[in-house]
């Protein structure tokens, strides 16, 4: 059996989430990587554990319509088609499944055998074991559940493919990227996140950044903090935002709603700092501190 993994490039490197998807795919047999867009062929060919790279430079923006059409043409040669459960993977793979009349399997966290998988449902409040009877199994992989393959060590051949003819119904206009010097949320070893308790956007910077700087941490936010305009939405951790599982997760000024817990409760060590001793976040925290974060966070930055 051979699996095909749709990979993504960021800043010239293969995204960690894609490398996790390759690790998951290797459970099924040999793995080919599919790369859309001009950049990244060299980085992709160095990936550990892949047979070859299929490179489609013409699909610059990985729009779902041509990407799914391309995948539909390739899928017949594969037993499994995977991607990271990233915004791109979630956009393209279900469309592929629609073209093939298959049922995609979203956010896989464990693989039991070639057709049996575990995935969270109800915001991670339950884990469903599911069995697929589709001839080609299409799935997205939760990156925090699989250790990524190495970025280098391989030397896979690169095969350039033509893009399918576009139907002209969709076009890319622009990408507004958010700027950040901090580690990517999903791969950071330490994450410190803030909720509504931070009271405004400037406190988000003045209170969280000094601690994050000391720890080399990424900064996250609860949905309430994002909705209140304290932080941009790509910082949102939760069911409807990013799912993280760092070594250390520090939750400050957030209650720990189900929606937020779904995005961080697999972190190795959780610290909660909250003024309300009854906040649900304390039920999942390894270390809790009840008190005023406006006093605790500066003291923490100083003590580190």
């Amino acid at each position, binding site marked *: 059996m051979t699996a095909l993994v749709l990979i993504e490039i*960021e800043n010239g490197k293969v995204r960690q989430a894609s490398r996790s998807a390759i690790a998951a795919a290797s459970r099924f047999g040999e793995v080919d990587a599919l790369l859309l867009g001009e950049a990244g062929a060299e980085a992709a060919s160095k990936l550990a554990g892949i047979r070859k790279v299929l490179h489609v430079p013409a699909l610059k*923006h990985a*729009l*779902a*319509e041509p990407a799914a059409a391309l995948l539909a043409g390739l899928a017949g040669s594969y037993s499994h088609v995977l991607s990271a459960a990233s915004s*791109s993977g*979630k*956009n393209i*793979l*279900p*469309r592929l*499944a*629609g073209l093939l009349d*298959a*049922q*995609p399997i*979203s956010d896989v966290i464990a693989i039991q055998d070639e057709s*049996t998988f575990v995935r*969270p449902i*109800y915001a991670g*409040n*339950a*884990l*469903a*074991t*599911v*069995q*697929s*009877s*589709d001839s080609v199994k299409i799935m997205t992989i939760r990156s925090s559940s699989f250790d990524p393959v190495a970025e280098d060590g391989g030397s896979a051949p690169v095969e350039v493919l033509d893009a399918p003819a576009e139907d002209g*119904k*969709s*076009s*890319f*206009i622009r*990408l*507004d*990227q958010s700027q950040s010097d901090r580690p990517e949320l999903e791969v950071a070893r330490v994450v410190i996140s803030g909720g509504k308790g931070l009271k405004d956007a400037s406190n988000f910077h003045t209170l969280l950044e000094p601690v994050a700087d000391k720890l080399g941490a990424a900064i996250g936010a609860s949905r309430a903090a994002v*909705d209140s305009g304290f932080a941009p*939405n*790509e910082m949102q951790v939760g069911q*409807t935002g990013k799912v993280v599982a760092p070594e*250390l997760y520090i939750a400050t000024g957030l209650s720990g709603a189900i929606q937020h817990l779904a995005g961080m*409760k697999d972190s*190795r*060590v*959780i*610290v909660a700092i909250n003024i309300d001793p009854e906040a649900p976040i*304390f*039920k*999942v*925290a*390894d*270390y*809790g*501190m*009840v008190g005023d974060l406006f006093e605790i966070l500066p*003291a*923490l930055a100083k003590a*580190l």
Partner: protein
Amino acid sequence: MKVLVPVKRVVDYNIKPRVAADGSGVETQGVKMSMNPFDEIALEEALRLREKGQADEVVAVSIGPQVAQDVLRTAMAMGADRAILIQTDAEIEPRVVSSLLKAVVEKEQPGLVSMGKQAIDDDMNATGQMLAARLGWPQGTFASKVEIADGKVEVAREVDGGTETVSLTLPAVITADLRLNEPRYASLPNIMKARKKPLETIEAASLGVDLTPRLKIVSVAEPPERKAGVIVETVDELVEKLKTEAKVI
């Protein structure tokens, strides 16, 4: 232009779901059910398009048992003009839902399908993309802004690391992200009025779609519980424990 809005009846988002003792699924008997929150946002967007004069009719559709009528009444109380229930008692997956919705689209001929990006019960995030594929329509997923002009829809999409804007030729499928809008509440007079709006029921079996799932649920289990933690009194104690006990800093 007509806008079709698929809505799903799910366990209310405020309820902590409980796994059934026999591991067959999550308890839904006697549990408060509501319209999927993302679908409310999709419906709100359709209503706003109508209010701007860019849509002339908003039709809500739900697929499920007879009781799913209640979310359709809610949709009409929010402002949908009429509703369609595709009735089935079968457990159906996005693959089947997208097939049934395709049949409704072919009958109703909307210019836009506005739906939620995912349902908060199965967390699949697939039906909109699958429907767009089946129809051969373009898709604007995870939409945070929607603008219609000259037979096209410009969609700002929430993607990893920022916002991507795409332009789609209508007809198209859009799936709503949280930040698209703030859905309105249904007022009491509108709830009363909604009782008189038309609600058509169609038997799913009459649409010629195979309802058999391809993804069988083998079992459903509680996630592993975390061990209870400790409360620390001072910042120094916290740092000390993170260094020597947890060894994470």
